[in-house]
Protein backbone atom coordinates (compact mmCIF):
# COMPACT_ATOMS: atom_id res chain seq x y z
CA UNK A 1 0.00 0.00 0.00
CA UNK A 2 2.70 2.45 0.99
CA UNK A 3 4.66 1.79 -2.20
CA UNK A 4 1.61 2.25 -4.33
CA UNK A 5 0.52 5.48 -2.73
CA UNK A 6 4.01 6.95 -2.91
CA UNK A 7 4.33 6.10 -6.60
CA UNK A 8 1.22 8.16 -7.19
CA UNK A 9 2.67 11.13 -5.34
CA UNK A 10 0.68 10.72 -2.17
CA UNK A 11 2.50 11.71 1.00
CA UNK A 12 2.61 8.75 3.32
CA UNK A 13 4.01 8.34 6.80
CA UNK A 14 3.93 5.54 9.30
CA UNK A 15 2.02 6.47 12.44
CA UNK A 16 3.02 4.87 15.71
CA UNK A 17 0.73 6.25 18.36
CA UNK A 18 2.37 9.67 18.39
CA UNK A 19 -0.36 12.28 18.40
CA UNK A 20 2.21 14.98 17.74
CA UNK A 21 3.13 13.28 14.47
CA UNK A 22 -0.50 12.93 13.57
CA UNK A 23 -1.36 16.59 14.06
CA UNK A 24 1.76 17.85 12.30
CA UNK A 25 1.07 15.61 9.31
CA UNK A 26 -2.72 16.10 9.42
CA UNK A 27 -3.59 13.17 7.17
CA UNK A 28 -6.55 12.91 4.83
CA UNK A 29 -6.69 9.20 5.39
CA UNK A 30 -5.52 6.85 8.13
CA UNK A 31 -5.29 3.13 7.48
CA UNK A 32 -5.10 0.92 10.54
CA UNK A 33 -5.42 -2.68 11.54
CA UNK A 34 -7.35 -4.44 14.29
CA UNK A 35 -4.37 -6.72 14.80
CA UNK A 36 -2.07 -3.78 15.51
CA UNK A 37 -4.15 -1.59 17.73
CA UNK A 38 -3.06 1.97 18.12
CA UNK A 39 -5.55 4.50 19.35
CA UNK A 40 -6.06 7.36 16.97
CA UNK A 41 -7.34 10.86 17.66
CA UNK A 42 -11.13 11.02 17.67
CA UNK A 43 -11.14 14.73 16.87
CA UNK A 44 -9.63 14.63 13.42
CA UNK A 45 -10.02 15.62 9.82
CA UNK A 46 -8.84 12.29 8.45
CA UNK A 47 -11.06 9.55 7.24
CA UNK A 48 -10.24 6.25 8.87
CA UNK A 49 -10.29 2.74 7.43
CA UNK A 50 -9.29 -0.22 9.56
CA UNK A 51 -8.43 -3.72 8.44
CA UNK A 52 -10.58 -6.23 10.29
CA UNK A 53 -11.24 -9.93 10.39
CA UNK A 54 -14.58 -11.51 9.51
CA UNK A 55 -17.58 -10.86 11.70
CA UNK A 56 -20.63 -12.28 10.07
CA UNK A 57 -23.54 -14.61 10.38
CA UNK A 58 -21.52 -17.57 9.07
CA UNK A 59 -18.99 -18.14 11.79
CA UNK A 60 -15.42 -19.15 10.94
CA UNK A 61 -13.93 -20.39 14.20
CA UNK A 62 -10.38 -19.24 14.75
CA UNK A 63 -10.64 -16.64 11.98
CA UNK A 64 -13.50 -14.42 13.16
CA UNK A 65 -12.69 -11.13 14.84
CA UNK A 66 -12.58 -11.29 18.64
CA UNK A 67 -15.10 -9.40 20.72
CA UNK A 68 -12.26 -7.38 22.21
CA UNK A 69 -11.09 -6.29 18.76
CA UNK A 70 -14.61 -5.47 17.65
CA UNK A 71 -15.01 -3.19 20.65
CA UNK A 72 -11.66 -1.54 20.00
CA UNK A 73 -12.52 -0.89 16.35
CA UNK A 74 -15.85 0.64 17.31
CA UNK A 75 -14.10 3.04 19.71
CA UNK A 76 -11.95 4.36 16.87
CA UNK A 77 -15.11 5.41 15.00
CA UNK A 78 -13.80 4.41 11.56
CA UNK A 79 -15.46 5.54 8.35
CA UNK A 80 -15.03 2.04 7.02
CA UNK A 81 -13.45 -1.30 7.71
CA UNK A 82 -11.93 -3.60 5.12
CA UNK A 83 -10.99 -7.26 4.95
CA UNK A 84 -9.37 -9.89 2.76
CA UNK A 85 -12.42 -10.77 0.74
CA UNK A 86 -14.04 -9.88 -2.57
CA UNK A 87 -17.42 -8.21 -2.95
CA UNK A 88 -19.09 -11.57 -3.07
CA UNK A 89 -17.57 -12.51 0.31
CA UNK A 90 -19.37 -9.73 2.11
CA UNK A 91 -21.51 -12.11 4.12
CA UNK A 92 -18.49 -13.01 6.26
CA UNK A 93 -18.14 -9.35 7.31
CA UNK A 94 -21.85 -8.57 7.26
CA UNK A 95 -22.24 -7.80 10.95
CA UNK A 96 -19.78 -4.92 10.72
CA UNK A 97 -22.45 -3.16 8.71
CA UNK A 98 -25.63 -4.68 10.13
CA UNK A 99 -24.76 -4.53 13.81
CA UNK A 100 -22.07 -1.88 14.08
CA UNK A 101 -23.17 0.35 11.22
CA UNK A 102 -19.62 0.52 9.82
CA UNK A 103 -19.22 0.26 6.06
CA UNK A 104 -17.23 -2.75 4.85
CA UNK A 105 -14.96 -2.42 1.80
CA UNK A 106 -13.56 -5.50 0.07
CA UNK A 107 -9.77 -5.60 0.09
CA UNK A 108 -8.59 -8.95 -1.22
CA UNK A 109 -4.89 -9.45 -1.71
CA UNK A 110 -3.42 -8.41 -5.06
CA UNK A 111 -0.14 -8.02 -6.93
CA UNK A 112 2.20 -5.10 -6.54
CA UNK A 113 3.18 -3.78 -9.96
CA UNK A 114 6.03 -1.83 -8.42
CA UNK A 115 7.75 -5.06 -7.38
CA UNK A 116 6.63 -7.93 -9.63
CA UNK A 117 7.18 -8.20 -13.36
CA UNK A 118 8.23 -10.68 -16.03
CA UNK A 119 12.05 -10.44 -16.19
CA UNK A 120 12.27 -12.73 -19.23
CA UNK A 121 15.08 -14.69 -17.64
CA UNK A 122 15.72 -18.38 -18.07
CA UNK A 123 13.49 -20.56 -15.96
CA UNK A 124 15.77 -22.80 -13.98
CA UNK A 125 13.16 -24.82 -12.11
CA UNK A 126 9.93 -26.54 -13.06
CA UNK A 127 8.35 -25.57 -9.76
CA UNK A 128 9.03 -22.63 -7.45
CA UNK A 129 7.34 -21.90 -4.16
CA UNK A 130 7.94 -19.17 -1.63
CA UNK A 131 6.22 -19.11 1.73
CA UNK A 132 6.06 -20.17 5.33
CA UNK A 133 4.98 -23.43 6.89
CA UNK A 134 3.45 -23.66 10.34
CA UNK A 135 0.88 -25.86 12.04
CA UNK A 136 -2.26 -24.64 10.35
CA UNK A 137 -0.73 -23.94 6.95
CA UNK A 138 1.04 -27.30 7.03
CA UNK A 139 -2.29 -29.08 6.63
CA UNK A 140 -2.65 -27.88 3.06
CA UNK A 141 1.06 -27.74 2.26
CA UNK A 142 1.48 -31.36 3.26
CA UNK A 143 -1.58 -32.45 1.32
CA UNK A 144 -0.93 -30.53 -1.89
CA UNK A 145 2.63 -29.25 -2.15
CA UNK A 146 4.84 -31.96 -0.67
CA UNK A 147 3.52 -34.73 -2.96
CA UNK A 148 3.98 -32.37 -5.91
CA UNK A 149 7.62 -31.79 -4.98
CA UNK A 150 8.20 -35.53 -4.95
CA UNK A 151 6.77 -35.79 -8.45
CA UNK A 152 8.63 -32.84 -9.93
CA UNK A 153 12.23 -32.99 -8.78
CA UNK A 154 13.24 -29.79 -10.52
CA UNK A 155 11.92 -27.53 -7.81
CA UNK A 156 13.02 -24.87 -5.40
CA UNK A 157 11.24 -23.87 -2.22
CA UNK A 158 12.29 -20.85 -0.22
CA UNK A 159 10.63 -19.63 2.90
CA UNK A 160 10.44 -19.80 6.63
CA UNK A 161 8.92 -21.79 9.42
CA UNK A 162 8.76 -25.48 10.06
CA UNK A 163 9.60 -27.22 6.78
CA UNK A 164 10.56 -30.92 6.64
CA UNK A 165 14.31 -31.48 6.21
CA UNK A 166 15.62 -31.01 2.69
CA UNK A 167 12.54 -29.31 1.28
CA UNK A 168 13.13 -25.61 1.86
CA UNK A 169 16.39 -23.89 0.91
CA UNK A 170 16.29 -20.72 2.95
CA UNK A 171 14.54 -17.50 3.55
CA UNK A 172 15.35 -14.96 0.84
CA UNK A 173 15.53 -11.18 1.08
CA UNK A 174 12.56 -9.19 -0.18
CA UNK A 175 14.56 -7.60 -2.98
CA UNK A 176 15.13 -10.92 -4.75
CA UNK A 177 11.60 -12.32 -4.48
CA UNK A 178 10.66 -11.19 -7.98
CA UNK A 179 13.76 -12.81 -9.42
CA UNK A 180 13.10 -16.01 -7.49
CA UNK A 181 9.51 -16.33 -8.71
CA UNK A 182 10.70 -15.60 -12.26
CA UNK A 183 13.03 -18.60 -12.04
CA UNK A 184 10.16 -21.11 -12.10
CA UNK A 185 8.07 -22.46 -14.95
CA UNK A 186 5.01 -23.19 -12.79
CA UNK A 187 3.92 -21.75 -9.46
CA UNK A 188 1.79 -23.90 -7.17
CA UNK A 189 -0.42 -21.83 -4.87
CA UNK A 190 -1.35 -23.08 -1.45
CA UNK A 191 -3.93 -21.46 0.77
CA UNK A 192 -5.37 -22.43 4.13
CA UNK A 193 -8.25 -24.70 5.03
CA UNK A 194 -10.70 -21.89 5.68
CA UNK A 195 -9.87 -20.47 2.23
CA UNK A 196 -10.81 -23.83 0.71
CA UNK A 197 -14.12 -23.83 2.52
CA UNK A 198 -15.02 -20.16 2.67
CA UNK A 199 -13.10 -18.57 -0.21
CA UNK A 200 -11.67 -15.67 1.79
CA UNK A 201 -8.01 -14.86 2.55
CA UNK A 202 -6.64 -15.90 -0.85
CA UNK A 203 -2.85 -15.44 -0.50
CA UNK A 204 -1.00 -12.93 -2.68
CA UNK A 205 1.06 -15.60 -4.41
CA UNK A 206 -1.44 -16.27 -7.17
CA UNK A 207 -1.41 -12.62 -8.27
CA UNK A 208 2.36 -12.13 -7.95
CA UNK A 209 3.11 -15.14 -10.14
CA UNK A 210 0.89 -13.78 -12.90
CA UNK A 211 2.88 -10.55 -13.06
CA UNK A 212 6.06 -12.63 -13.24
CA UNK A 213 4.62 -14.43 -16.26
CA UNK A 214 4.60 -17.72 -14.36
CA UNK A 215 1.35 -19.68 -14.67
CA UNK A 216 -0.06 -20.86 -11.39
CA UNK A 217 -2.13 -23.79 -10.22
CA UNK A 218 -4.21 -23.10 -7.14
CA UNK A 219 -5.28 -25.57 -4.50
CA UNK A 220 -8.96 -26.23 -3.93
CA UNK A 221 -10.71 -22.88 -3.65
CA UNK A 222 -14.00 -23.33 -5.49
CA UNK A 223 -14.99 -19.66 -5.37
CA UNK A 224 -11.79 -18.41 -7.02
CA UNK A 225 -13.10 -18.73 -10.58
CA UNK A 226 -15.80 -16.16 -9.85
CA UNK A 227 -13.21 -13.42 -9.48
CA UNK A 228 -10.30 -14.84 -11.47
CA UNK A 229 -11.50 -16.50 -14.66
CA UNK A 230 -8.04 -17.59 -15.75
CA UNK A 231 -7.29 -19.37 -12.49
CA UNK A 232 -6.34 -23.00 -12.79
CA UNK A 233 -7.88 -24.56 -9.70
CA UNK A 234 -7.34 -28.16 -8.65
CA UNK A 235 -10.07 -30.36 -7.25
CA UNK A 236 -7.73 -32.30 -4.99
CA UNK A 237 -4.01 -33.08 -4.56
CA UNK A 238 -3.97 -35.54 -7.46
CA UNK A 239 -5.59 -33.02 -9.76
CA UNK A 240 -3.13 -30.41 -8.47
CA UNK A 241 -0.21 -32.52 -9.56
CA UNK A 242 -1.84 -33.42 -12.87
CA UNK A 243 -2.52 -29.78 -13.73
CA UNK A 244 1.06 -28.78 -12.97
CA UNK A 245 2.22 -31.67 -15.13
CA UNK A 246 -0.05 -30.59 -17.95
CA UNK A 247 1.33 -27.06 -17.85
CA UNK A 248 4.88 -28.38 -17.96
CA UNK A 249 4.26 -30.74 -20.84
CA UNK A 250 1.80 -28.83 -23.02
CA UNK A 251 3.37 -25.65 -24.35
CA UNK A 252 0.15 -24.37 -25.94
CA UNK A 253 -1.72 -24.74 -22.66
CA UNK A 254 1.22 -23.20 -20.83
CA UNK A 255 1.37 -20.11 -23.02
CA UNK A 256 -2.39 -19.65 -23.02
CA UNK A 257 -2.63 -19.83 -19.23
CA UNK A 258 0.41 -17.60 -18.70
CA UNK A 259 -0.92 -14.93 -21.03
CA UNK A 260 -4.46 -15.06 -19.72
CA UNK A 261 -3.41 -14.89 -16.10
CA UNK A 262 -1.04 -11.98 -16.65
CA UNK A 263 -3.62 -10.02 -18.61
CA UNK A 264 -6.37 -10.62 -16.09
CA UNK A 265 -4.28 -9.70 -13.09
CA UNK A 266 -3.05 -6.53 -14.77
CA UNK A 267 -6.63 -5.68 -15.59
CA UNK A 268 -8.27 -6.42 -12.25
CA UNK A 269 -6.01 -7.58 -9.47
CA UNK A 270 -3.19 -5.17 -8.70
CA UNK A 271 -2.99 -2.97 -5.63
CA UNK A 272 -3.82 -0.07 -7.95
CA UNK A 273 -7.26 -1.57 -8.23
CA UNK A 274 -7.61 -2.36 -4.55
CA UNK A 275 -6.54 1.08 -3.35
CA UNK A 276 -8.53 2.81 -6.03
CA UNK A 277 -11.61 1.00 -4.76
CA UNK A 278 -10.79 1.86 -1.14
CA UNK A 279 -10.37 5.54 -1.94
CA UNK A 280 -13.51 5.61 -4.05
CA UNK A 281 -15.64 4.02 -1.35
CA UNK A 282 -14.27 6.45 1.21
CA UNK A 283 -15.30 9.37 -0.97
CA UNK A 284 -11.90 10.25 -2.46
CA UNK A 285 -13.19 10.07 -6.00
CA UNK A 286 -10.50 12.14 -7.74
CA UNK A 287 -7.69 10.37 -5.94
CA UNK A 288 -9.29 7.07 -6.79
CA UNK A 289 -9.24 7.97 -10.48
CA UNK A 290 -5.62 9.03 -10.21
CA UNK A 291 -4.67 5.62 -8.89
CA UNK A 292 -6.83 3.74 -11.34
CA UNK A 293 -5.29 5.53 -14.29
CA UNK A 294 -1.69 5.50 -13.13
Amino acid at each position, binding site marked *: MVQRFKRCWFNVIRYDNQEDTWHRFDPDLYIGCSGHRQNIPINRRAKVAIHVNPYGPPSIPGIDESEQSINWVKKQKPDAVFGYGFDED*KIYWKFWEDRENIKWIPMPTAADRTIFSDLNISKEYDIVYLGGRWGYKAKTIDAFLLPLLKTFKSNKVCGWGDWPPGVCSARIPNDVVNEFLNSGRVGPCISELHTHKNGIDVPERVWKLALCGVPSVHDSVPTLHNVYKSAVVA*KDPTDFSNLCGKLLSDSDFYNQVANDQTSEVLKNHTYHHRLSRLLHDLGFVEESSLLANS
Partner: protein
Amino acid sequence: MALETDKFVYFHIPKTGGTWIRNAIKKSGIICKEVGDTHITVRRILHDYDYAHILRDKHVIVSIRNPYSWYQSYWSFKMKVGWSMNNPFDNLCASNDFNRFMINVYDNCSEYYNHIIDSFLIDEYVNCVILYESLVTDFTRAMRDIYGFDCSFSDSRVNVSDMSGLRSYDMARYNDYTYGLVSKMNGHIIDKYYA
Protein backbone atom coordinates in the same frame (compact mmCIF):
# COMPACT_ATOMS: atom_id res chain seq x y z
CA MET B 1 -29.31 -43.68 4.17
CA ALA B 2 -32.85 -44.51 3.29
CA LEU B 3 -34.82 -45.42 6.37
CA GLU B 4 -36.72 -48.68 6.11
CA THR B 5 -39.45 -49.80 8.49
CA ASP B 6 -41.85 -52.71 8.39
CA LYS B 7 -44.30 -50.72 6.29
CA PHE B 8 -42.47 -47.93 4.50
CA VAL B 9 -39.14 -46.74 3.18
CA TYR B 10 -38.23 -43.07 3.54
CA PHE B 11 -35.78 -41.43 1.10
CA HIS B 12 -33.99 -38.28 2.17
CA ILE B 13 -33.34 -35.53 -0.37
CA PRO B 14 -30.87 -33.06 1.20
CA LYS B 15 -32.40 -29.89 2.67
CA THR B 16 -35.98 -31.16 2.63
CA GLY B 17 -36.57 -31.74 6.33
CA GLY B 18 -35.22 -35.27 6.29
CA THR B 19 -33.31 -35.01 9.55
CA TRP B 20 -36.53 -34.03 11.32
CA ILE B 21 -38.37 -36.96 9.74
CA ARG B 22 -35.65 -39.39 10.77
CA ASN B 23 -35.77 -38.15 14.34
CA ALA B 24 -39.55 -38.27 14.35
CA ILE B 25 -39.56 -41.86 13.15
CA LYS B 26 -36.97 -42.91 15.70
CA LYS B 27 -38.71 -41.09 18.54
CA SER B 28 -42.04 -42.66 17.63
CA GLY B 29 -40.63 -46.06 18.49
CA ILE B 30 -41.14 -47.47 15.02
CA ILE B 31 -38.42 -50.03 14.41
CA CYS B 32 -36.28 -49.04 11.43
CA LYS B 33 -32.99 -49.71 9.72
CA GLU B 34 -30.75 -47.62 7.50
CA VAL B 35 -30.04 -48.66 3.92
CA GLY B 36 -27.20 -47.27 1.80
CA ASP B 37 -25.70 -43.77 1.96
CA THR B 38 -27.38 -40.85 3.68
CA HIS B 39 -28.94 -39.44 0.57
CA ILE B 40 -29.19 -42.57 -1.53
CA THR B 41 -31.67 -42.09 -4.33
CA VAL B 42 -34.49 -44.40 -5.31
CA ARG B 43 -32.76 -44.94 -8.62
CA ARG B 44 -29.53 -45.85 -6.87
CA ILE B 45 -31.06 -48.25 -4.36
CA LEU B 46 -32.71 -50.07 -7.24
CA HIS B 47 -29.37 -50.29 -9.02
CA ASP B 48 -27.11 -51.16 -6.07
CA TYR B 49 -29.45 -53.26 -3.95
CA ASP B 50 -32.04 -55.88 -4.69
CA TYR B 51 -34.82 -53.57 -3.58
CA ALA B 52 -37.39 -53.45 -6.34
CA HIS B 53 -39.67 -55.97 -4.65
CA ILE B 54 -39.35 -54.24 -1.28
CA LEU B 55 -40.23 -50.87 -2.76
CA ARG B 56 -43.22 -52.43 -4.48
CA ASP B 57 -44.41 -54.05 -1.26
CA LYS B 58 -44.01 -51.03 0.99
CA HIS B 59 -45.00 -47.40 1.02
CA VAL B 60 -42.23 -45.27 -0.40
CA ILE B 61 -41.99 -41.77 1.05
CA VAL B 62 -39.92 -38.91 -0.31
CA SER B 63 -39.84 -35.34 1.01
CA ILE B 64 -39.26 -32.50 -1.42
CA ARG B 65 -38.92 -28.75 -1.15
CA ASN B 66 -39.97 -25.81 -3.24
CA PRO B 67 -36.98 -25.05 -5.51
CA TYR B 68 -37.01 -21.39 -4.49
CA SER B 69 -36.32 -22.20 -0.86
CA TRP B 70 -34.24 -25.28 -1.64
CA TYR B 71 -31.53 -23.14 -3.27
CA GLN B 72 -31.68 -20.69 -0.37
CA SER B 73 -31.29 -23.50 2.11
CA TYR B 74 -28.48 -25.20 0.20
CA TRP B 75 -26.51 -21.97 -0.10
CA SER B 76 -27.03 -21.08 3.56
CA PHE B 77 -25.91 -24.54 4.58
CA LYS B 78 -22.74 -24.10 2.53
CA MET B 79 -22.14 -20.72 4.13
CA LYS B 80 -22.19 -22.53 7.43
CA VAL B 81 -20.12 -25.62 6.63
CA GLY B 82 -18.08 -24.37 3.65
CA TRP B 83 -17.82 -25.35 0.00
CA SER B 84 -16.18 -28.53 -1.20
CA MET B 85 -14.40 -28.92 -4.51
CA ASN B 86 -14.96 -32.66 -4.32
CA ASN B 87 -18.65 -31.95 -4.73
CA PRO B 88 -19.13 -31.29 -8.46
CA PHE B 89 -22.09 -28.98 -7.84
CA ASP B 90 -20.06 -26.87 -5.39
CA ASN B 91 -17.11 -26.95 -7.73
CA LEU B 92 -19.12 -25.35 -10.51
CA CYS B 93 -21.46 -23.10 -8.57
CA ALA B 94 -19.76 -21.96 -5.37
CA SER B 95 -20.10 -18.32 -4.48
CA ASN B 96 -20.41 -16.50 -1.19
CA ASP B 97 -22.95 -14.21 -2.82
CA PHE B 98 -26.33 -15.89 -3.14
CA ASN B 99 -27.31 -14.24 -6.41
CA ARG B 100 -23.97 -15.04 -7.96
CA PHE B 101 -24.44 -18.63 -6.78
CA MET B 102 -27.81 -18.73 -8.55
CA ILE B 103 -26.27 -17.40 -11.77
CA ASN B 104 -23.56 -20.06 -11.54
CA VAL B 105 -26.25 -22.70 -11.03
CA TYR B 106 -28.14 -21.48 -14.08
CA ASP B 107 -25.01 -21.28 -16.22
CA ASN B 108 -23.38 -24.53 -15.12
CA CYS B 109 -25.84 -26.86 -13.42
CA SER B 110 -29.34 -25.81 -14.40
CA GLU B 111 -30.60 -29.39 -14.34
CA TYR B 112 -29.16 -30.25 -10.94
CA TYR B 113 -32.31 -29.98 -8.83
CA ASN B 114 -34.39 -31.54 -11.60
CA HIS B 115 -31.95 -34.41 -11.67
CA ILE B 116 -32.21 -34.87 -7.92
CA ILE B 117 -35.98 -34.90 -8.05
CA ASP B 118 -35.97 -37.29 -10.99
CA SER B 119 -33.62 -39.63 -9.15
CA PHE B 120 -35.98 -39.86 -6.21
CA LEU B 121 -39.48 -39.36 -7.54
CA ILE B 122 -39.85 -42.45 -9.70
CA ASP B 123 -43.58 -42.78 -10.16
CA GLU B 124 -43.49 -46.55 -10.37
CA TYR B 125 -42.32 -46.80 -6.77
CA VAL B 126 -42.95 -43.56 -4.90
CA ASN B 127 -46.49 -43.24 -3.60
CA CYS B 128 -46.13 -40.59 -0.89
CA VAL B 129 -44.58 -37.18 -1.46
CA ILE B 130 -44.16 -34.95 1.59
CA LEU B 131 -43.70 -31.24 1.08
CA TYR B 132 -41.16 -29.50 3.30
CA GLU B 133 -43.49 -26.56 3.49
CA SER B 134 -46.13 -28.68 5.23
CA LEU B 135 -43.73 -31.20 6.67
CA VAL B 136 -45.37 -32.01 9.99
CA THR B 137 -48.89 -32.14 8.64
CA ASP B 138 -47.93 -34.27 5.64
CA PHE B 139 -45.82 -36.65 7.70
CA THR B 140 -48.47 -37.04 10.39
CA ARG B 141 -51.06 -37.80 7.72
CA ALA B 142 -48.73 -40.30 6.05
CA MET B 143 -48.16 -42.13 9.34
CA ARG B 144 -51.89 -42.22 10.01
CA ASP B 145 -52.57 -43.61 6.54
CA ILE B 146 -49.87 -46.24 6.88
CA TYR B 147 -50.30 -47.30 10.51
CA GLY B 148 -53.90 -46.34 11.09
CA PHE B 149 -53.33 -44.31 14.23
CA ASP B 150 -52.45 -40.72 15.07
CA CYS B 151 -49.06 -39.64 16.32
CA SER B 152 -48.32 -36.07 17.35
CA PHE B 153 -45.09 -34.58 16.17
CA SER B 154 -43.78 -31.18 17.16
CA ASP B 155 -42.33 -28.80 14.58
CA SER B 156 -38.96 -28.38 16.27
CA ARG B 157 -36.83 -28.70 13.16
CA VAL B 158 -33.21 -29.61 13.35
CA ASN B 159 -30.26 -29.20 11.01
CA VAL B 160 -31.60 -25.89 9.74
CA SER B 161 -29.08 -23.48 8.32
CA ASP B 162 -29.56 -20.83 10.97
CA MET B 163 -26.71 -18.40 11.48
CA SER B 164 -26.87 -16.15 14.51
CA GLY B 165 -30.62 -16.32 14.57
CA LEU B 166 -31.08 -15.62 10.87
CA ARG B 167 -32.85 -18.18 8.73
CA SER B 168 -31.77 -19.06 5.24
CA TYR B 169 -34.54 -16.89 3.85
CA ASP B 170 -33.00 -13.82 5.51
CA MET B 171 -29.50 -14.65 4.39
CA ALA B 172 -30.25 -15.56 0.80
CA ARG B 173 -32.42 -13.05 -0.96
CA TYR B 174 -33.20 -13.35 -4.64
CA ASN B 175 -33.05 -10.35 -6.90
CA ASP B 176 -35.57 -10.08 -9.73
CA TYR B 177 -33.23 -11.72 -12.21
CA THR B 178 -32.24 -14.75 -10.14
CA TYR B 179 -35.81 -15.25 -8.95
CA GLY B 180 -36.76 -15.63 -12.58
CA LEU B 181 -34.02 -18.18 -13.15
CA VAL B 182 -35.66 -20.64 -10.75
CA SER B 183 -38.85 -20.84 -12.74
CA LYS B 184 -36.82 -21.28 -15.92
CA MET B 185 -34.87 -24.17 -14.40
CA ASN B 186 -37.48 -25.85 -12.24
CA GLY B 187 -40.82 -24.54 -13.46
CA HIS B 188 -42.28 -27.99 -13.99
CA ILE B 189 -41.59 -29.00 -10.38
CA ILE B 190 -43.22 -25.82 -9.14
CA ASP B 191 -46.20 -26.37 -11.42
CA LYS B 192 -46.61 -29.98 -10.39
CA TYR B 193 -46.25 -29.69 -6.63
CA TYR B 194 -46.70 -26.04 -5.76
CA ALA B 195 -49.27 -24.65 -8.17
